[in-house]
């Protein structure tokens, strides 16, 4: 166990956490406003990756892949929310079954359209290679993910904390009924938040395509991570999603490196501990 091991693993954990933040911040916001447990959230991540892949093949543009993947999935999210989930507001079990139904359909459609082979998203040359600092090697792409997550996190925080729309969202999170009462169009806010959540998850999927790859089964593999982040951080809390993502990224990386056979245990045992001490998560409110 050299210092190099610890630094490299910490770096890898933080960059994985940055990717998880993109995925989980949307899930947390959606939950905060609409109290929906969205089991199709991992599917947004996977579909975003696939759409991004197709666009990247056609246009050879990484930016186009990012935007097209995220926007396409945001549209799917809006459709799901408007046409289906809205009818089931307040029915937790119904929402769970509905979103898992969609997750299965998306899984099968992805298999039908993109086949069963794993792919890797082509990364632009500027983001390839490694940055060497004091003899330690840091992949540029992972640095890029961390920078993007910081950017997204800061924008979200500014938007939520400093703008009128952000205030409306926070009001809807705190008490949807009262927010409706003072004239905030909660259904419109819900739709926007759902679209944003799907957008962020798909953005994560396109970016994840550059180092995790895109392959069948990724949707249900990544979903529990998003859930653990949200559980640890507290439902509906943006700071919670940030801290939770980094914690989960680090735990997962060190778990896999130090105890490969018990990797999930090292991820879930601390989650259980946090829950035992704070049932609503680190930043959650009751």
């Amino acid at each position, binding site marked *: 166990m050299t210092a190099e091991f610890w630094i490299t693993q910490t770096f890898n954990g933080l960059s994985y956490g940055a990717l998880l933040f993109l995925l989980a911040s949307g899930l947390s916001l959606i939950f905060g406003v609409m109290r929906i447990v969205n089991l199709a959230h991992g599917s947004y991540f996977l579909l975003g990756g696939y759409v991004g892949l197709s666009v990247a093949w056609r246009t050879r543009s990484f930016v186009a892949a990012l935007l097209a993947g995220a926007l396409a999935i945001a549209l799917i999210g809006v459709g799901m929310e408007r046409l289906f989930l809205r009818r089931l507001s307040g029915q937790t*079990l119904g929402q769970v079954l509905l979103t898992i139904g969609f997750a299965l359909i998306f899984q099968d459609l992805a298999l039908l359209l993109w086949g069963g082979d794993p792919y890797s998203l082509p990364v632009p040359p500027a983001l390839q290679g490694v940055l060497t600092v004091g003899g330690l090697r840091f992949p540029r792409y992972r640095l890029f993910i961390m920078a993007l997550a910081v950017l997204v996190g800061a924008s979200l925080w500014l938007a939520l904390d400093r703008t009128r729309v952000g205030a409306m969202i926070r009001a809807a999170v705190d008490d949807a009924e009262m927010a409706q009462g003072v004239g905030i169009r909660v259904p419109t806010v819900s739709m926007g938040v759902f679209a944003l959540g799907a957008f962020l998850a798909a953005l994560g999927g396109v970016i994840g395509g550059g180092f995790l790859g895109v392959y069948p089964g990724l949707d249900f593999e990544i979903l529990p991570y998003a859930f653990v982040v949200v559980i640890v951080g507290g439902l509906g809390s943006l700071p919670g999603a940030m801290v939770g993502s980094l914690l989960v990224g680090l735990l997962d990386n060190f778990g896999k490196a130090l105890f490969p056979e018990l990797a999930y245990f090292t991820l*879930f045992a601390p989650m259980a501990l946090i829950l035992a001490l704070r049932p609503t998560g680190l930043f959650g409110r009751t």
Partner: protein
Amino acid sequence: MRNRRAVVVGVTVAAGAAVVAPFLSAYPLTLLTQAAIVGILAMSLDLLLGYTGLPSLGHAAYFGVAAYAVGILSTEYRSGFFTCLLVGLTLATLTAAVFGLLAIRATGTYFLMITLALGMVVWGLAFRWVSMTKGDNGIAGVPRPEGFLPWSLGAPLPFFYFTLLAALVAWTLLGLLVRSPFGLGLMGIRESESRMRALGYNVWLHKYLAFVIAGGFAGFAGVFWAYYNGFVSPVDVQLVTSVETLLMVALGGPGTLAGPALGAAVIVFLKNFVSVYTKRWLLILGAVYIGVILFAPRGVLGAFRRER
């Protein structure tokens, strides 16, 4: 008795299956066997979801723990049926006892998410703890139970009767449980936790015991599943298996026991028939989820139930 119709339907279907079984070929017989086993799993979840109002998203965990116990014991140690049954039940119950301590603290959506995450712990172990579980390859070659009955359980027909008997035992025990004062307490908690607390009931203990008992019965199903399939793999403990069980309960009508068992049979037959005709059965299963929720939210049997 509110559930009399469910009991009548359940008995009729079980008796019908028992009568026609000797005339069936091997394939429909294995489907009936599968339906009986998965029916036990669905009934065990109904105790939580239908009677206590706790929607668990990790119920496959206890099912899988028991199935793995049987798989490992019967292949590595050549253990007999009763050893496997006992160890499987004990481990599943213990797992539920530990998970329950964490999960019962939470309510509503938190409960869903925590049970999902706890279920994933078991999946992760099944997938990664390769020296114990053989990882993704699974444990193959689980032999059918032998030597404690005067006839062999190797053939499909006797094994079907064996699992049908197990399902009837589970149904009877769970039926007695939900009609007991304890079971009525659970239903009270489902309707209003605060009222039950005000009446002096220990709500936490009721929920916890229901959670542990449901885990034990899921383990009971898991034991038979390992013997039926002859194979145990991470698929048995994955999230989709847990959610499929929820679908069976929702389809059959929560809080009727027989309903979820029939829901299980419907899904088992549907899955197998559809997969004969098309590779796209996940697509169809997904559509079934959405259809059930939109058009029969109280379940197929629930649709016949009188209003409370």
